[in-house]
């Protein structure tokens, strides 16, 4: 087992997708793919699970709605009921029509911001973060497939052959530093 990483670079998204399918057929595990734009249909091939961000967004939205109702109900009905223009605040249900716009806005506010923040946190994106794409060209016009050899049973030569045959333009490699072995004293 070597701890080498292979970076296969492709010039076209469809070629990469096809290559990933071939690798999967041969039992090679693809660690990650870096691309200038999303490649549709790639996720099931390299084993990226479906994201649950949308469910999160629904929960954030529901939280926003509850906050809005609690806030308006408490302030207008319980804490300081006011009689404005002969329209007194008697009960939450009677005032509900006037609360609809703010309820809606707060639902959207929480749903949008909650989801955007969750996205930034789970994708580890924040100011000061170091970019992790192994090649500068992957944000321009090249597509990069990363294969960690230690995760794969097949030999380096075999994987290289498959990559070459399926249209990789170039294959770069990186050897990780030898991990210090944990020795019991």
């Amino acid at each position, binding site marked *: 087992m070597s701890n080498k990483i292979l970076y296969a670079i492709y010039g076209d998204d469809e070629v990469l997708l096809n290559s990933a399918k071939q690798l999967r057929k041969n039992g090679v595990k693809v660690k990650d793919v870096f691309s200038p734009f*999303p490649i549709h249909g790639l996720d099931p091939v390299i084993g*990226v699970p479906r994201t649950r961000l949308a469910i999160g967004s629904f929960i954030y939205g529901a939280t926003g709605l509850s906050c809005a109702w609690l806030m308006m109900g408490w302030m207008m009905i319980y804490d300081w009921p006011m009689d404005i223009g002969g329209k007194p605040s008697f009960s939450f249900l009677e005032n509900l029509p006037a609360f609809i716009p703010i309820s809606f806005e707060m639902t*959207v506010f929480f749903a949008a911001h909650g989801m955007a923040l969750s996205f930034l946190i789970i994708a580890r994106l924040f100011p000061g973060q170091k970019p992790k794409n192994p090649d500068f060209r992957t944000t321009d016009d090249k597509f990069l497939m990363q294969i960690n050899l230690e995760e794969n049973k097949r030999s380096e030569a075999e994987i290289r052959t498959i990559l070459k045959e399926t249209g990789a333009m170039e294959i770069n490699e990186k050897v990780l530093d030898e991990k210090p072995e944990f020795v019991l004293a």
Partner: protein
Amino acid sequence: MNYESDVREPLILGNKTWHDVSVDISKPIEGKANKYWYVAFAISFLTASWGVGCICYTIGTGIGTWGLNKTVGWAWDITNFVWWIGIGHAGTLISAILLLFRQKWRMSINRSAEAMTIFAVICAALFPAIHMGRIWLAYFVFPLPNQFGSLWVNFNSPLLWDVFAISTYFTVSLVFWYMGLLPDFATVRDRAAVSMKPFRRKIYTILSFGWSGNARTWTRFEEMCLVLAGVSTPLVLSVHTIVSMDFATSVMPGWHTTIFPPYFVAGAIFSGFAMVLTLMLIARKTLNLEQYITVNHVESMNKIIILTGSIVGVAYLTELFMSWYSGVEYEQYAFINRATGPYWWAYFSMMTCNVVTPQLFWIKKLRRSFVATFIISIFVNIGMWFERFVIIVTSLHRDYLPSSWTMFHPTFVDMGIFIGTIGIFFTCFLVFCRIFPVIAMAELKAILKTSGSQYKKN
């Protein structure tokens, strides 16, 4: 992969490759500005400074510096507020609603239209804030516990709904815009790394939040954009609905109508698209984007102008009919006064610019002509400003009591602040053109294979 019918004309001309897209869109950021940019920036900046001066004068002296009086308590300030907010709506329509409708042509214009939204909302929010007179007490609009005991804001008031609507709209648009910018900032960052520009690389590394574009992030990113578009779509419709309720929930003749929400939303999108066209036609020339923003994009936008312009026209006629049909003499007078009273010229300008001029786009030649589009877009901008002026001032200036009847005369401060906001808007937009990628590169690259001209040929 998606396949697209050969009958559709290509969206991107000039046989571009992915690399060409990066080069062309990054060029304004990487290169030096030409002299037109400096001239435009100088003019905008001076206008903005003049506006800021007038704002400072207003804040220091009070809103007595404006032409308002006891009868006409709302005039240019609220006119400008509604006008700017309306302009902002096109950006969200393009980025959210057209995304849900899978309109690919939006990708060449959504970035700058969203930027326009943000700057327009900033200009809009200025007006209610300075109209408060004592702007340092502006935090009173938020439901905060205050030093006078727990006296809360009035959640039954449409003006407070507006506070929530505008702040939600502004922040959500900002987030939507910035999220879309992350992959493009990364492109600029990596190009700076390749061409050995350490300072630029550092700046864009921070701006890009360390975006690396791996498969999992792209999946999450696309999901997030789709959901953001989903929540922004009702949001954009709600914002101008709530703005219209500022008027519609009052008992003023001329304001108290149920037609206002859809009529205002259509008007907002109408004026917003006109402003997008004005800006885009300038931007495509000065930033050399002719192959990305083509005559087809302009035609699509003009079609939306015909649709929304016609809705606005029908709304004007419906208003007239309803005032007659209601049998309420105050209501009837309000509309007769609009058309034949001392402000007839404003009503006439509104009708000509908003109802007649956009109908010229039924002619294909005009719809596909840049010069005609540019001229008509400016007419629509002017017309929509007059629409708000007509609604606000002509309804107010004839009060129930004839002894209160008066006219509104803007002072130099009124005019200065309005022109100043136009300066602020253009200053922001010009800075945006030099720092931000003006076209969503990542999105455009994704459709290049189906909609680019070289792929269409075979």
